[in-house]
C-alpha cells in the first residue's frame, strides 16, 4: 500500500465536494481566534487564502519576499480567468469546464479536484466583482466574455490584458482590509527558509527579514505554502526574477512529496532571446494567435538569408512560406494547445528554419489579419474601390484597437514595428504544472502543511489550459482551503500557542544560519547567476520541450557536477545582516540545483509523452505525442532522500470514473 492517501470523498464526481462540505469538521468562531495560520506567498492563492481565513476569524501571518503583497507574479497574467457561468448562452456548464480541463491536461489530473475547481469557478467571479474588480463589460453593463486557449465556448472573463493584475489587486485589497483590522500580520520583504515540523506536524517556519538579515521564528497550527511555481529553474522563463522553489523545496526536504516535477508548460508566444545578457523572457498574450499566422520559410536558403540578416520576412513570397501549424493541424490551425504549438516551433527551428540570428524564432504574422480587417472596414464604410494603402490603414486601426498594448510592448522590447514586419516569437517556460503533492484537502504529506495555487500539482495534469491558473489560485484560496483546513484544525483547538523555543525550532534555525554563513564566508570565484545560467541551459536543452533518455541521463550527471562546483566556487558578496539580494539568490539557486535533478529523474521515469512532457522515444509516426495510459496513468510523488538520486517514487493511480480517456487530437 502506498503512503499516499488522496482522501477523495466517495460518491459520484459531482456530489463529492457538496458531500465533503456537509460532513467536514468545523471550528467554532471562539476557537478560531486562538488558532494561528502561516501563509507563505501573497499571490492569488496566498492573498485570497490569508484574507478569507482572517475573515473567518483565524489569526493569520502572511509572508512575501517582495516589498508589498501586491507585487506577486500572479499580477503578470494577461489573458483572463475561466468560469462556468454560461453567461453567453453557448452551452457551457460545470461539466464542460471540468471535461475541458481534464482533457487539456492530457488525462493526468485528478477528476475529483478538477470537478471541484469547475464547481467553484462561478463563485470566484461573483466574489471578485463584489470586491470591485473591474472586469470588461458590454454596453448593457453586464460582464463580457471571450474565448481563450482554443475552447469552444466563451467562458473567459477578462480585464483588458491585465486580468491577473486586477484579480491580484482585488485579493490584495481584501488582504489589506484584514491587515488593517489586525487579523493578518503582514511580513513584507521576508523569505521563508524552512518549515518547522514538530511531532510530525508542520508547526511553523523560519524566515529571514530581507532588510535586516535577521532570522526569525514563527509558529502556527498550520502552514500554507502559496509560493508559486518553479519555472525559474530554467533561468530564462516568463516568471518574475524572484520566483523560486525554496519554500516548496524546503517543505519537500521536511517530508512533503513532490508531485509530477517534470510537468512544465512551455508557452509558444514569447519574445525570443536576444543575447547572453537576457535575464527573463516576456510573454505575448496567447490571444495573438487568434488573428496572427505562424510561419517559417519553406526553403532553407531563405531561412539562412534571414538568419544572416540578408532578407526580411516580408521579402519571402507567399508560396515560399510554410504555415506549419495550419499544415499539420488543419482543424485547429494556429489555435492548437500550447504544448503542441511550442513543439511544432521547436521542430521547425531544429530543422534549420528559424528566423533570427540564433535560428530560434518563428514568425507571427499580422499582415493577413490587417488586410482581412481592412476589407471588412471598407465594406462597412461602403467604399467601392479602396486602395491597398487604405485597406492597410483601416486594418491597422482595427488591430491596434484589439492588440495595441501588446504590439507596443513588442516594439518597446525588440525595437521592431510589428505592424510593418512580422513579429518573431519562440516558446519559453511559463508555468509548472508539477508542485507539492497534495490530497483532496490540499494538504501535503506533512500534516498541517498545505500547498495552494501553482505551488501544488493538483488540477492541471500534464498541461494547463489558458485562463485556468488564475481560476485555480483563487479557487484554492477563496473556496477550498477555508473548508478543508477546518477538518484538520478542529483537532487543534486545545493545543494552545505553539512555542518557538523548542529543539525543532533550534535545529531548523541553525540549519538556515549555517547555510547563510557558508555563503557569505565562502571564498568562491563565480557569481550565483553564473551557476543559475548554466543550470538553466542544461534544463532547457535536455529537460525542456523535448526530452530523451540519453539527454536526461546526461543532464542528471551535469547537474550533479554543477551542484558540486556551486558549493565550492560560489561567491556571495556582502554580509548576512543587511539587504543582500545576492545572498537571497544563492539560497534559491541552491534549491534549484537539487530540484533540477529531480525533474530530470521524473522525466526519465515517465517513458511516455503527455501534455507538456514530450519524450522523443514516445511519439507517433507523424511526430505527435504518444501517451501510455497502461503504464503511466499516475501522479508521480517523490519522497526526499538526502541524496537526490535516492529519492523514492510513489505513484498515485489516476482513476477516471466520469471521463473516458482518449487520445488528444487537434488535427
Amino acid at each position, binding site marked *: 500500500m502506498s503512503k499516499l492517501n488522496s482522501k477523495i470523498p466517495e460518491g459520484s464526481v459531482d456530489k463529492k465536494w457538496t458531500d465533503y462540505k456537509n460532513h467536514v469538521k468545523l471550528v467554532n468562531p471562539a476557537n478560531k481566534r486562538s488558532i494561528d495560520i502561516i501563509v507563505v506567498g501573497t499571490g492569488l492563492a496566498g492573498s485570497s487564502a490569508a484574507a478569507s481565513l482572517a475573515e473567518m476569524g483565524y489569526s493569520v501571518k502572511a509572508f512575501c519576499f517582495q516589498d508589498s503583497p501586491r507585487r506577486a507574479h500572479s499580477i503578470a497574467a494577461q489573458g483572463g480567468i475561466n468560469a462556468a457561468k454560461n453567461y453567453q448562452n453557448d452551452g457551457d456548464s460545470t461539466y464542460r469546464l471540468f471535461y475541458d480541463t481534464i482533457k487539456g491536461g492530457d488525462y493526468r489530473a485528478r477528476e475529483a479536484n478538477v470537478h471541484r475547481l469547475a464547481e467553484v469557478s462561478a463563485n470566484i467571479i461573483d466574489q471578485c466583482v463584489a*470586491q470591485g474588480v473591474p472586469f470588461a463589460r458590454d454596453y448593457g453593463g453586464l460582464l463580457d466574455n471571450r474565448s481563450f486557449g482554443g475552447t469552444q465556448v466563451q467562458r473567459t472573463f477578462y480585464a483588458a490584458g491585465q486580468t491577473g493584475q486586477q484579480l491580484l489587486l482585488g485579493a490584495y485589497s481584501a488582504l489589506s482590509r484584514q491587515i488593517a483590522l489586525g487579523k493578518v500580520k503582514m511580513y513584507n520583504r521576508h523569505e521563508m527558509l524552512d518549515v518547522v515540523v514538530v511531532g510530525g506536524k508542520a508547526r511553523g517556519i523560519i524566515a529571514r527579514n530581507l532588510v535586516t538579515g535577521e532570522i526569525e521564528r514563527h509558529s502556527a497550527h498550520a502552514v500554507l505554502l502559496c509560493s508559486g511555481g518553479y519555472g525559474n529553474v530554467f533561468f530564462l522563463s516568463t516568471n518574475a*526574477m524572484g520566483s523560486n522553489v525554496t519554500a516548496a523545496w524546503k517543505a519537500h526536504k521536511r517530508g512533503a512529496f513532490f508531485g509530477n516535477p517534470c510537468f512544465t508548460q512551455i508557452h509558444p508566444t514569447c519574445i525570443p532571446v536576444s543575447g547572453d545578457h537576457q535575464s527573463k523572457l516576456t510573454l505575448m498574450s496567447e490571444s495573438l494567435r487568434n488573428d496572427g499566422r505562424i510561419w517559417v520559410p519553406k526553403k532553407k536558403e531563405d531561412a539562412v538569408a534571414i538568419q544572416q540578416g540578408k532578407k526580411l520576412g516580408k521579402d519571402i513570397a507567399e508560396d515560399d512560406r510554410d504555415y506549419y501549424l495550419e499544415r499539420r493541424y488543419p482543424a485547429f490551425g494556429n489555435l492548437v494547445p500550447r504544448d503542441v504549438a511550442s513543439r511544432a516551433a521547436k521542430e521547425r527551428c531544429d530543422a534549420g528554419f528559424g528566423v533570427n540570428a540564433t535560428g530560434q524564432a518563428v514568425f507571427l504574422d499580422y499582415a493577413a489579419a490587417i488586410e482581412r480587417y481592412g476589407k471588412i472596414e471598407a465594406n462597412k464604410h461602403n467604399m467601392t474601390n479602396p486602395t491597398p494603402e487604405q485597406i492597410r490603414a483601416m486594418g491597422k486601426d482595427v488591430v491596434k484597437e484589439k492588440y495595441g498594448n501588446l504590439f507596443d510592448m513588442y516594439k518597446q522590447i525588440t525595437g521592431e514595428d510589428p505592424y510593418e514586419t512580422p513579429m518573431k516569437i519562440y516558446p519559453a517556460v511559463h508555468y509548472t504544472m508539477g508542485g507539492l503533492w497534495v490530497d483532496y484537502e490540499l494538504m501535503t504529506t506533512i500534516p498541517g502543511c498545505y500547498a495552494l495555487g501553482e505551488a501544488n500539482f493538483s488540477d492541471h495534469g500534464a498541461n494547463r489550459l489558458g485562463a485556468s491558473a488564475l481560476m485555480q489560485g483563487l479557487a484554492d484560496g477563496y473556496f477550498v482551503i477555508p473548508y478543508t483546513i477546518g477538518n484538520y484544525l478542529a483537532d487543534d483547538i486545545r493545543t494552545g500557542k505553539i512555542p518557538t523555543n523548542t529543539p525543532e525550532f533550534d535545529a531548523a534555525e541553525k540549519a538556515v544560519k549555517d547555510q547563510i554563513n557558508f555563503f557569505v564566508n565562502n571564498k568562491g570565484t563565480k557569481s550565483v547567476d553564473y551557476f543559475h545560467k548554466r543550470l538553466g541551459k542544461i534544463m532547457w536543452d535536455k529537460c525542456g520541450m523535448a526530452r530523451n533518455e540519453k539527454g536526461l541521463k546526461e543532464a542528471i550527471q551535469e547537474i550533479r557536477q554543477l551542484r558540486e562546483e556551486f558549493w565550492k566556487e560560489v561567491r556571495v*558578496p556582502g554580509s548576512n545582516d543587511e539587504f543582500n539580494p545576492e545572498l537571497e539568490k544563492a539560497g534559491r539557486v541552491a534549491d534549484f540545483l537539487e530540484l533540477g535533478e529531480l525533474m530530470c529523474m521524473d522525466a526519465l521515469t515517465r517513458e511516455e509523452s503527455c501534455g507538456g512532457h514530450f519524450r522523443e522515444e514516445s511519439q507517433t509516426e507523424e511526430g505527435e505525442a504518444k501517451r501510455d495510459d497502461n503504464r503511466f496513468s499516475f501522479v508521480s510523488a517523490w519522497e526526499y532522500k538526502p541524496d537526490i538520486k535516492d529519492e523514492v517514487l510513489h505513484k498515485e493511480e489516476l482513476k477516471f470514473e466520469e471521463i473516458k480517456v482518449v487520445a488528444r487530437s487537434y488535427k
Partner: protein
Amino acid sequence: MKLNLKIWRQKNREDKGKMVDYSIDHVSPDMSFLEMLDVLNEQLINKGDDPIAFDHDCREGICGMCSLFINGRAHGPNYGVTTCQLHMRSFKDGDTIFIEPWRAQAFPVIKDLAVDRSAFDRVIQAGGYVSANTGGAQDANCLPVPKENADKAFAAATCIGCGACVATCKNGSAMLFVSAKVSQLALLPQGKAEAQQRVLNMVAQMDAEGFGNCSNTGACEIECPKGISLENIARMNREFMKASILSEK
C-alpha cells in the same frame, strides 16, 4: 556601446550616501536597463565589490517593483514604460547616465537604489477596499455597471503602485496613487457604500505618511508608466469635499 554611470550608493537607511562613478563597456542596445545593471553587478562581484542593490521582479512592466530615477526622470527617458521595459537603444554611446533612487520622505532608502514603499500599503489598508467577505457575494451579473464607468474604473485600477508619481512630483505627493484607488471604487456601485469613509481615511493616511501636497503640475500623469489620468485626482478632490461636508463623523 560604452557608458558612464553615476549611481547613488547608500549602505543602509542611516548612511548618508553619495554618487559613485562607474563605466561599463559592450552594452548591447537590445539589453533592458536592468539587464545592463545586471552586467555591471556581475562585473562588480567578480572584482570583489559590493553589487548595486535595486528593486525589480517581473521585468515585464506590471509588478511595479522596479523604480530608478534615470537622468532626472522617473523610469528614464521614455514615456509610458517602467524601468524594466526601458531598453538601452534609448541611449547613445558615450552617454553619462545618472541613476538615483526614488526620493521622498515617505520612501526611505533601504540600500542603494531600493526604497521602502510600504507607505502605499498603509494607504490602501486605510480604506482601499470593498468590505466584501468571501462567500457572501451575489451573482456577478446582478450588479450591472455602465461600460463607461467600468472602463474608467479599470483605467484607474491599472496603477501598479510603483511610486513614479511620488518620485517625479516636485512635492513628493501621492495624490495620483491615492486618487486612482479612490476613483476606481467611487466609480463602481460596489464601492459606493463605503465611499465617504474611504476617501476621508485614505487621504488622512496619505497626509500622515508625509507625502507632499498636490500643486497640479501634472508631472505625475506624464511620468506614470500606466498613464493614470489627472481626472482621478479631480474626482478625489470632489469625493473628499463631498465626504467632508456630508460625513456625520
